[in-house]
């Protein structure tokens, strides 16, 4: 079953300084099955973040269609959870309140949403941090909260916009491994935007390469799970796929 479907998606906007129309997304069609993990890679300016923002409903699209479970996207909504590069945790809310925010907006009573939030915090190994404020946590921990906050709302699609780009390299590897573990446990449908080719291949079932606002190519990743860097770093298939994607991105 298709959870997410992009049909001839297009985005143009008027640049008042240049006095002309600019095309950010030319023509993108993409289907994502339920429980699939899709990475989207491409050089900067290829329109990947624009596409994610359109799926999230943050910016309007100027052509084509975005369907979530068959429903047309018209604005932001809780069926699409978003994980931001900037983490975007609410600084005035504790970790527990941040994770319970989605359920709160749905009117779930406090006891129940606290229980849900604690369950998801445990999933990310963050039970001890429930009553802390975001500014008291490291960047890696903050983004773990960002991920489970989106998951705790049970979205149809999880949209991740370069979520690990602003943490240090070691933490990033840990977060990537944890994300694959959580994905295996919960099987959410994920769109993961990144410019890091190895990251894209490591995480996904399928890698979509974008170029100049179009889908250049797609590659299936059939690596076994659980995926661990110590093993994959020497794995021939992983190396071959990464090289292949890298070549496409650089040629793009």
């Amino acid at each position: 079953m298709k959870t997410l479907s992009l049909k001839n998606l297009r985005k143009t906007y008027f640049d008042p300084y240049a006095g002309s129309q600019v095309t950010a997304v030319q023509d993108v069609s993409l289907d994502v099955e339920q429980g699939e993990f899709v990475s989207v890679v491409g050089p900067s300016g290829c329109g990947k973040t624009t596409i994610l923002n359109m799926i999230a409903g943050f910016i309007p699209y100027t052509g084509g269609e975005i369907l979530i479970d068959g429903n047309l996207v018209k604005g932001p909504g809780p069926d699409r959870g978003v994980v931001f590069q900037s983490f975007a945790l609410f600084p005035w809310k504790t970790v527990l309140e941040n994770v319970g925010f989605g359920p709160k907006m749905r009117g779930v009573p406090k006891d129940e949403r606290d229980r849900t939030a604690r369950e998801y915090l445990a999933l990310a190994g963050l039970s001890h941090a429930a009553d802390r404020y975001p500014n008291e946590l490291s960047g890696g921990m903050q983004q773990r909260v960002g991920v489970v906050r989106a998951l705790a709302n049970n979205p149809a699609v999880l949209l991740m916009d370069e979520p690990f780009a602003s943490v240090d390299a070691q933490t990033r590897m840990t977060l990537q491994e944890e994300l694959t573990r959580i994905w295996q446990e919960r099987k959410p449908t994920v769109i993961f935007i990144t410019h890091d080719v190895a990251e894209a291949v490591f995480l996904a079932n399928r890698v979509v390469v974008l170029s100049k606002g179009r889908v250049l190519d797609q590659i299936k990743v059939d690596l076994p799970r659980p995926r661990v860097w110590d093993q994959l770093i020497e794995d021939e298939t992983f190396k071959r796929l990464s090289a292949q994607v890298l070549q496409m991105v650089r040629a793009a």
Partner: protein
Amino acid sequence: MNIALKFWSGYVRATHRWPIIATIVPFIPVVAIWSIVANSGMFPRAFFPAPVDVMRSFISLTYKGILPDYLQDSLIRLLFGAAIGVALGIPLGILIGSSRLAHRICWPVLLFFQAIGDIAWLPILLIWFGFGLTTMTFVIVYTVLFPIVLSTVLGVQSVHRDLARAAQSLGASPMRVLWEVTLPGALPNIITGLRNGLGYGWRALIAVEIIVGTSGIGFMMFDARRAGSTVEILLGMIVLGTLWYIVDAWILAPIERATGQRWGLVTS
């Protein structure tokens, strides 16, 4: 040297236990110099009274109930005006801060009226409303309003766009985004605006009481001038300074510590 260090350590520990000591100690030299000058006979005592005289006047006016009454009048006026200013200023600031259209329309007008100082309104206000509470309230509301509006606009604009987006994608309606994201995000700035507004309002109130008043601290000071009582004028000035310190240290600063500083939005 050793003794000085010991003394210093004792002082630091004492101020840690009783913070009020840190407030009072810096005033000791001020009062001492004042006392020395007053007692030196350089000026006549009626012209330049000593701290003791002011203290005596403080006790007597408090005992007669005049000072508490006037203080109460001034504070009620300030709080009344400030409450209206806050009730108008925060919504206006949120509107201007979150809507580009409202910003374009209101901003030039806002800056224009901000430039016309509170006191500059008095001539026309006295003709319109006469010597009364309406005039005083108008001036205070006017004074309090601008710092609050400007700070709220700044606060709203400083909230990271991703926070509102995060809330929306977690299912928050526009009203919930306002309540859960925009307001708390703007709060540290709003408090700064409130602090400035109350400070300006307090000064404006005294000025207005001098011209319009029939009671209040400003009136007391101006009335004392007519009677040639320098003691009461100085007492009024000291009350003004002390009161503001109390409002700032006991009300505004704790709010700041509990909000922006706690959340890491403002570094302490």
